[in-house]
């Protein structure tokens, strides 16, 4: 997302997204489908609830000894012949990967879908270094052709209709394409096959890394992950440090719930377990394997207010059920990670100032927390972020004045009663039939689209005080 977009206030970005008829159509179809699939997947899986608790417990226990698990992981990756790099910041991660690509003389890099590489803006860095990045996940391929960023954690092109994709392919690939998903996939596959064979380096993320065995785990549906990790001479995997899990048996707990939460599948089509570079006697696999461990604001949150968000599996379930995401899509949020969890991750990575307005992009309905496979209490942390915004006085001053007044009013019943009487007086010119259809100031934000009930002729407490019959 360009900085120009972030210069537009969030409310306008959201408003723009709601004017986009294609986006609205695509979002409604896709999120409704995901919600139904997830619901069905768990309905037929009675042990799911206990596994969700278990998964969360594993994440919590792992975070408590993250150093130890990372050391084990590093030792095992190195034992298998891989190399491990540590990046404190996105800039360090970019530099490490660009250096690795240069050292291998790479001119083209094939990538499988990875939010970590989006987070560090890797593609721009590769292009600047004269290396062509090629996204091989279909959704990522589409948005790369369109020069866009992902708008959903697992479905990067969720904002596009099939008609828009057909137009894009026709224009960018110079071949006529019909708005038929199968035909479009065939075109992308033919284009990509060549790239897999030409690329010198393959770059992936990692859904998990198993400390005990030094295994990198990729959960994909298209098989491109296997190609990226096995065909090029060099494989680089980038992952946030929190993705480590202690053992294979822990991994199984996550695999049992991840795809169900994400796409409603029992398992994804491919679960690729990658262990280091090709060893003597093996027929395929890269000559070099590198693992880049990214901090990027995560480690500070192990003891921070956003700790829970470090358990996130990046399944996207909270986006699909979020009433706000379902109206505005991912791009309006303005950062790499959209949706409810994205607000928390943005705060983690960019600081609290970045989410001053985004922290309020939630009705706190709780659907996200309910859908989250590891039960992250997202609404609670959004409230905590709002509190931090208020405490640090970075909330807009008119808001601070209004809430300051409200707080005083609610502590003084006499003032509260006076306000009720004042409201009754002031609303008079605007009331018709007990309702207010239009009114100035902040309430106008309400009445533009909804009627506002009028302050009652007598409040309940006024009636209770005046009416002995009511008091019984």
């Amino acid at each position, binding site marked *: 997302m360009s900085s120009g977009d972030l210069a537009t206030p969030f409310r306008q970005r*959201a408003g723009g997204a709601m004017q986009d008829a294609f986006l609205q159509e695509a979002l409604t179809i896709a999120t409704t489908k995901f919600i139904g699939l997830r619901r069905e997947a768990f309905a037929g899986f009675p042990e799911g609830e206990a596994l969700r608790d278990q998964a969360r417990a594993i994440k919590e226990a792992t975070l408590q000894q993250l150093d130890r698990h990372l050391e084990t992981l590093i030792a095992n990756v190195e034992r298998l012949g891989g190399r491990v790099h540590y990046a404190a910041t996105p800039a360090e991660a970019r530099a490490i990967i660009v250096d690795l690509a240069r050292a291998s003389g790479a001119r083209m890099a094939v990538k499988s879908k990875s939010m970590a590489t989006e987070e560090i803006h890797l593609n721009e860095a590769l292009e600047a270094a004269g290396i062509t990045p090629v996204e091989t996940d279909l959704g990522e391929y589409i948005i790369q052709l369109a020069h866009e960023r992902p708008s959903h954690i697992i479905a990067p092109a969720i904002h596009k209709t099939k008609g828009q994709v057909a137009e894009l392919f026709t224009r960018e690939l110079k071949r006529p394409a019909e708005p038929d998903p199968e035909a479009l996939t065939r075109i992308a596959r033919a284009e990509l096959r060549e790239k897999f064979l030409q690329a010198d380096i393959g770059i992936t993320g990692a859904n998990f890394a198993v400390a005990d065995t030094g295994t990198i785990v990729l959960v994909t549906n298209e098989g491109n992950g296997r190609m990226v990790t096995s065909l090029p001479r060099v494989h680089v995997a980038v992952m946030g440090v929190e993705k480590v899990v202690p053992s294979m048996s822990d991994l199984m707990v996550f695999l049992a719930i991840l795809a169900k939460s994400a796409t409603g599948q029992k398992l994804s089509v491919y679960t690729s377990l990658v262990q280091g570079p090709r060893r003597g006697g093996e027929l395929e696999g890269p000559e070099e394997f590198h693992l880049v461990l990214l901090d990027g604001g995560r480690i500070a949150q192990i003891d921070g207010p956003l700790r829970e968000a470090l358990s996130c599996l990046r399944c996207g379930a909270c986006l699909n059920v979020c009433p706000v995401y379902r109206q505005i899509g991912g791009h309006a949020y303005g950062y790499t990670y959209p949706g409810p969890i994205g607000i928390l991750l943005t705060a983690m990575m960019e600081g609290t100032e970045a989410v001053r307005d985004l922290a309020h992009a*939630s009705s706190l309905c709780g659907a996200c927390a309910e859908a989250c496979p590891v039960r992250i209490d997202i609404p609670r942390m959004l409230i905590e972020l709002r509190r931090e915004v208020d405490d640090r006085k970075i909330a807009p001053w008119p808001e601070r004045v209004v809430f300051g007044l409200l707080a005083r009013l609610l502590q003084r019943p006499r003032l509260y009663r006076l306000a009720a009487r004042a409201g009754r007086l002031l609303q008079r010119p605007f009331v018709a039939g007990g309702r207010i259809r239009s009114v100035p100031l902040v309430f106008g934000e309400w009445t533009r*689209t*909804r009627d506002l009930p009028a302050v009652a002729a007598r409040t309940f407490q006024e009636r209770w005080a005046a009416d002995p019959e009511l008091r019984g």
Partner: protein
Amino acid sequence: MTGRRASLMVTCLGDLFFPHVGIAIVRVLRKLGVTVDVPADQTCCGLPLFNSGYHAEAAAVARRTAALFRDSEHVVVPSGSCAWMVKHEYPGLLAGAGLAREAEDLAARTHEFSQFLVRVLGVTEFSSTVPGRVTYHDSCHLLRGLHESESPRTLLGKLRGAELVPLGGADECCGFGGSFAVRLPEVSAQILAKKVANVEATGAACLVACDAGCLMQMGGGLTRRRSKVRAVHLAELLGAER
């Protein structure tokens, strides 16, 4: 049943905008033999301050509200969100003032209206007559905060003359969200428009909810569209005796 005492926490929205809901609750409870009182000088539970992050201020409001209900046998609340605030957030908010135990005690005595009827009093049948179709919207805090979806439906399902029809997306937010509704009014309104379309598709005459915030939002959306569907609180139907 007789001998029970309950205090009504009328809530700010209930007091200012929906006094008839409070009145209906008083009449319904009294008819069941419950002695109802209304502690004076009520303002608000503090949820609007809490949700916007003004926690010190919310704690001050919580402290005075909790004090008003110190001696209540039961506290009955017309809105799931306010009940949730008292039950789930007061203990943490008041711990700083050394009042955690008192707050826990109040939390245990506080009940959302439909839960009080069904789960505390054990009453599910009312003699009121409500002709026509009714449908029910799950308020977020009542559904996901207090894990209640059954009690209001049980009560509605047994009303004489009423046909309870399911609402598509009943568990989806109506777009109210307190200050959210005016901070992001366009988003809030679009969420509401989808809710209203689902409501109208049921063919119901009444849309029932157990939260003043949702009723303000959905009622405002329905009357703006000049819809024939009326948004009402559960208590209004239970007390509708002719």
